[in-house]
């Protein structure tokens, strides 16, 4: 018994060590097919654990139809829907292809993906470019405006950003995020600081490598006009940090949390690639004018990788405004979210600190044993999509990971360790 406890402790120390040692650098933007050679034609990567068309929620179906038209696999949304129902597309989770995607998380061959390299371990992770606010594919939007923007990201913005990144050494993300935390970002719902820092880091090289001034102006305005531009970079960073933590025998650390709009799933280092899933919960939050809870789709997206590395809901104390989605919205409540997440994590990240909490490090390394013992589920900051396809974002809020995932994971872990 004590031997097992000792093995777990050693394994978890190794896991947390790898998390802290991660050195994520944004190095490139390239087409998904190039980044992920196993990504095939008519293959659609989606957010969350595996899900088939029958069980897919409304907004994810909307995004599937949109991306099929975008890729030229279907002439229109209606045909795309029919084809999806007939099994014309191969649905796979982003997480199985070194990728992550926000909300619906559509990743397909011709979309440009940002490349984050973890230079401490040599692995890479990928995420598409954030489309901005309003009607966007990640929230299930699929009309002409949405598809036109995706085409421009593919043909204009993505190549420009890739050229700029390739002209330098890449942009180290760990110090950038550390700085963002001091500027009020928690990297899930607040990315204003990091987006500004990224714009500052990118724009000289983008200008130097720009083909035409109009294109450059549009690209810079696109970054500057999107408070959430950095979110997708933070997500690829999270994936790049967590992948080397996978498959450590006897470790109880969560390596991924993810939702497909139907189910919430987690993966644990010591239990390999198994997803432990449970029905997703409904976020508690605030809605845009004209929308209510009745319009909301349950929780969705791979963006919870941000919480998995200790940001987002775990770093709420850095972004007090976000606590306003629930409760009284005071800064002290925001700090308490972070403190309570420290109850379910192995340690703090000494490089990512929160000034208003006396420079306490963000809680890092979710331990399934601590989640089950305390009954405290991870807090997740999230956007809220409309439940119907094609409408888009209707609000934002805070949601908890379902405890059932952690119970299952702990049972499976115990089996594996030979504990009954």
């Amino acid at each position, binding site marked *: 018994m004590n031997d097992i406890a000792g093995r777990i402790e050693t394994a978890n120390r190794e896991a947390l060590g790898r998390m802290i040692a991660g050195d994520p650098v944004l190095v490139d933007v390239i087409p998904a097919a190039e980044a992920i050679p196993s990504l095939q034609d008519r293959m659609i990567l989606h957010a969350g654990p595996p899900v088939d068309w029958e069980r897919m929620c409304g907004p994810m179906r909307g995004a599937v139809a949109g991306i099929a038209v975008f890729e030229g696999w279907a002439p229109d949304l209606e045909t795309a829907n029919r084809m999806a129902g007939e099994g014309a597309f191969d649905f796979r989770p982003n997480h199985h292809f070194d990728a992550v995607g926000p909300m619906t998380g559509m990743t397909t061959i011709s979309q440009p993906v940002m490349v984050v390299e973890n230079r401490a371990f040599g692995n890479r992770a990928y995420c598409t470019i954030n489309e901005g606010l309003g009607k966007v594919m990640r929230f299930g939007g699929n009309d002409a405006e949405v598809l036109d923007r995706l085409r421009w990201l593919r043909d204009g913005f993505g190549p420009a950003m890739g050229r700029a990144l390739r002209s330098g050494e890449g942009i180290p993300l760990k110090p950038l995020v550390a700085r963002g935390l001091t500027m009020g970002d928690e990297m899930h719902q607040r990315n204003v600081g990091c987006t500004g820092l990224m714009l500052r880091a990118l724009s000289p090289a983008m200008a130097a490598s720009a083909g035409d001034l109009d294109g450059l102006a549009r690209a810079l305005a696109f970054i500057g*006009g999107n408070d959430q531009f950095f979110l997708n970079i933070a997500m690829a960073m999270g994936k790049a940090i967590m992948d080397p933590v996978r498959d450590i025998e006897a470790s109880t650390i969560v390596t991924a949390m993810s939702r497909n709009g139907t189910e919430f799933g987690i993966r644990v280092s010591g239990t390999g690639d198994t997803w432990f899933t449970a029905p997703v919960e409904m976020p508690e939050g*605030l809605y*845009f*004018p004209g929308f209510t809870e009745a319009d909301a789709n349950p929780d969705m997206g791979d963006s919870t990788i941000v919480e998995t590395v200790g940001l987002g809901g775990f770093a709420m104390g850095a972004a007090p405004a976000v606590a*306003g989605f629930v409760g009284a919205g*005071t800064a002290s409540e925001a700090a308490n979210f972070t403190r309570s997440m*420290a109850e379910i994590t192995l340690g703090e990240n000494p490089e990512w600190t929160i000034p208003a909490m006396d420079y306490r490090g963000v809680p890092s390394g979710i331990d399934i044993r601590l989640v089950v013992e*305390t009954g405290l589920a991870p807090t997740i900051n999230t956007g809220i999509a409309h439940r119907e396809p094609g409408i888009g974002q209707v609000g934002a809020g805070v949601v908890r990971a379902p405890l059932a995932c952690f119970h299952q994971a702990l049972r499976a872990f115990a089996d594996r360790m030979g504990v009954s």
Partner: protein
Amino acid sequence: MSRVIVNRVRKGLYLDSVALMRFSRSIAGLAGVEEAALMMGTPANLGILVEAGLLDGAGEHAKGGDLVIAVRARDGDSADAAVAKAGELLDQPRLTRGETAAWRPRTLRAALNQVPEATLALISVPGDFAAAEARKAIRRGLDAMIFSDNVPLADEVALKREARDLGRLVMGPDCGTAIINGVPLAFANRVPSGAVGIIGASGTGIQEVSCLIARNGAGISHAIGVGGRDLSEAVGGISTLRALDMLARDPASERVVLISKPPAPEVSARVLEKLSGIGKPATVCFVGAPPMAMPANAVQAFTLREAALRSVGVSGETPPPALPPVPTIAPGRREIRGLFSGGTLCAEAQAVMLAGKIAVASNAPIPGAAPASTGAAESLLLDMGDDSYTRGRPHPMIDPEVRDDAVRQAMADPSVAVILADIVLGFGAHGDPAGHLARAVRAAGGAERALLIASVTGTEADPQIRSVQIAKLEEAGILVAPSNADAARWACEAVQR
């Protein structure tokens, strides 16, 4: 009725979107308002306002740095009122009145991060989980006090053995009272600091002794509870032995008092042997035990009162105060009925009465007393804190109502000569136990009734204030003895006269 859309633009005023969404929600809830939004005038947000049917000519010229108040209402008055209210909120953008949300850690680990210098964990969780929590505490180098009861005996044994190996102290399980470095934990009285260190396998025993020490002008260094089963054969006195070591090393503890029910013989021998080696004068009170051979540095006391007096240097033979004049008891009344909230106080009263040659029965009989069910003795002393009374109800020290029925019955019973009761004060206890008993006695009424005798375990510094509690009892015609032992002795005298 025609709908009215009103937009106001506040130029150059920025507020965070979440704060604005909160304001939007409260404005949208006002009377007559169909929909409302406060948003920064970015192109994306203006698009949302158009979709929601909220934008008018004023709003559509807003810039990204301007704040738009947009209201759609049933009539102009409602719209204007809503816009005015929104303006008020914006000019006082605080979300709350500055209350700070308190933080309470959920786990020992988080608590220790907050207070790394802590040396003791107080554990109060359902009994099945208490040993697991205590194990975490001792493995982190803390001593543990377990308030929880219903901890399996096997858990207690395993836990205390591990604690012994780790050099840690486990107080409890079912440890209701401790005072460490002057800090009262759980049920405890406010007593001055002093030279007497107490080790007790009983909560009310510690309370009575520490209060009597305080009332005799002395004080205590520490009071260490060890749990009612510590001196059983199974546990073997592990915590008591550890506590004796600690008091032996503690310079503030010049004298030691040990309180317990009579231990298992071999455990008693081990404890007395340890006691002989501590090099400090000691008083041993195994309530209900016969005279025993004591080590040279120890004396045996037979009541809590005697233990307290001896530990402060007053001879145990000090005569107790005489029974004040009381009305003659009718000849048919012979029984003493004791209704106790404190288990050890009940045991002490039995010891006093047995010494006074009165046969007693109890639901918690000491050696020499009969079990309550046999009906072998006239006098019946009940421990009303026993599980059979408290299952699903609070302990009588917390809620004295548990005792009310028994008080009524005893007062209506023509064979009862004396009703004996304890009043226990201090932290954790009921706010006015004497007032409660006085009301129960008054409600029972009756011109011809039993004599009521009580004692008050407590100090003037306790939240309930001992003198205030005594006055309430006396006002209700209840005789108040200076100690629980004195009350029992008075009861004997009254029936034997």
